[in-house]
């Protein structure tokens, strides 16, 4: 059935984005809002607003019972979850479907399967998609470690299987170091976690983050080429682009084909993203995980393909089969997105919520600004710091970076600190301009005083 009314179970810029897509399709919009969000841009634009709970996300946007009750009461025939919050929560998806409402995304089973790293890895292997070479099971002793490391190839990374958040990780360059580091790691793991089993995988020192956008209708799956998101800080993407810079066409074809193979294997329905690590020295790529939702950085793909991904999500969820085939999709030019966060990049990225005392959207041809901002808006401290995404497109990467610089100069956000100075510094950095970076580059550059030295 075609969707006639849509409940938006999210907030911020993505809620605004979803409302615009729904309106373009003639769909009525019902916006969920916490008590802190009733004055948001999304609430101003939606046809209806439903207050779902107090400001804290745990008591509003993350409260499955409260959100499902609001959906049912609203009479909406579909729910768009956006990204974050409940978008990849199988329990929420099941509750929505049990209420007889369409979930704009894959079914609960697919989300559970692809959201678990171990099962997603197994599906990838079954689909013939390369994964980061790792130990088969856990490592029991030094002999086992030696054999596994020879098979995987140095350098390897050893982790305590009971550890988390980077604790107990060691990088091992060769067999001589392995002889000392494995017993050490085991002793430490035993002391820290009461369990000395280790896991080992190939260490990719200068990995790039490349991801492939897919769109499926449950039977057919197409890819919409790749994005590169290697510029990251604390594992948060800062700057994203499509296509990836300096990626050999042969690699692009292979990585996109592998994404389609995996998505087809799980009969993927709706928009999804397969994330890979890419080693530009060996030209190898490895699947790491799948995100079963729309991503923050989807606009760069829209800019190069001309396909509106959120509208496509709504049409597929409404029961349409894909209305184009792979050969109809062409990538043209180059697009870059930068995330404008309410943070002070010159003061350790301290959050900077507050009142917007002046605002002007960026100007320029092929400039897009997806935002929650308006003049006089009070940015609350309860949610993440993303206030806007500046997207520019041009014929080639160098022109896109020039367009980004001009657009950043015309964007005016007053009353709070933002990450605009960071993006200006990146846009003028020779290594960024040459596309020579990896996922650890930005933090290394900042650690060396790159940001303060520039501005």
């Amino acid at each position, binding site marked *: 059935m075609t969707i006639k009314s849509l409940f938006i179970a999210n907030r911020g810029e993505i809620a605004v984005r979803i409302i615009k897509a729904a309106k373009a399709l003639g769909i009525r919009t019902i916006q969920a809002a916490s008590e802190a969000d009733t004055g948001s841009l999304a609430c101003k634009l939606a046809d209806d607003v439903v207050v779902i709970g107090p*400001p*804290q996300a745990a008591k509003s946007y993350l409260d499955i019972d409260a959100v499902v009750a609001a959906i049912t009461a609203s009479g909406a025939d579909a729910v768009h979850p956006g990204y974050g919050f409940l978008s990849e929560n199988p329990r929420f998806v099941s509750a929505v479907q049990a209420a007889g409402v369409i979930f704009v995304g894959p079914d609960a089973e697919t989300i559970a399967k692809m959201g678990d790293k171990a099962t997603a890895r197994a599906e990838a292997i079954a689909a013939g998609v390369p994964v980061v070479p790792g130990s088969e099971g856990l490592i029991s002793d030094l002999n086992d470690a030696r054999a596994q490391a020879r098979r995987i190839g140095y350098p390897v990374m050893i982790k305590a299987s009971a550890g988390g958040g980077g604790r107990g990780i060691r990088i091992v360059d060769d067999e001589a170091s392995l002889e000392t580091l494995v017993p050490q790691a085991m002793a430490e793991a035993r002391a820290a976690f009461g369990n000395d089993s280790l896991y080992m995988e190939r260490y990719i020192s200068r990995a790039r983050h490349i991801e492939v956008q897919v769109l499926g209708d449950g039977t057919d799956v197409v890819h919409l080429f790749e994005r590169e998101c290697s510029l990251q800080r604390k594992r948060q993407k800062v700057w994203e682009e499509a296509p990836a810079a300096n990626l050999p066409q042969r690699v692009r074809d292979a990585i996109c084909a592998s994404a389609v193979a995996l998505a087809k294997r799980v009969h993927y329905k709706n928009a999804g993203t397969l994330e890979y690590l890419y080693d530009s020295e060996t030209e190898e790529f490895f699947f790491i995980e799948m995100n079963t939702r729309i991503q923050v950085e989807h606009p760069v793909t829209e800019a190069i393909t001309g396909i509106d991904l959120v509208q496509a999500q709504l049409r597929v969820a409404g029961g349409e089969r894909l209305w184009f085939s792979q050969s109809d999709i062409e990538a043209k030019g180059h697009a870059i997105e930068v995330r404008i966060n*309410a*943070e002070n990049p010159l003061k350790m990225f*301290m*959050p*900077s*919520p*507050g009142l917007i005392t002046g605002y002007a959207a960026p100007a320029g041809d092929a400039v897009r600004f997806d935002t929650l901002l308006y003049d006089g808006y009070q940015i609350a*401290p*309860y*949610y*993440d*710091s993303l206030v806007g995404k500046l997207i520019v497109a041009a014929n080639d990467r160098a022109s896109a970076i020039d367009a980004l610089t001009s657009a950043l100069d015309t964007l005016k956000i007053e009353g709070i600190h933002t990450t605009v100075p960071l993006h200006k510094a990146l846009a003028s950095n020779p290594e960024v301009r040459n596309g020579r970076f990896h996922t650890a580059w930005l933090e290394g550059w900042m650690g060396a005083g790159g940001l303060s030295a520039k501005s």
Partner: protein
Amino acid sequence: MAKQLLSPLPGVFYRRPSPDEANFKNDGDAVAAGDTVGIVEAMKSFFPIEAEEAGVAIRFLVEDGAAIDAAQAIAEMD
């Protein structure tokens, strides 16, 4: 005159590192320079509030879990 401890940013104030742990400081405790007396959650990040100088007999002015403004005094000490 009492020394005030101010929050550097708006957010939600917590007196404990996590719900299962003890308060960083209790009313009447002595505080050394650099001691953490609380944390502020803002925009999904946590920031410690540290005492810039030593003091005796800290007194908290806001409750655990309360919303606070930038530069609001969260505690004072002698």
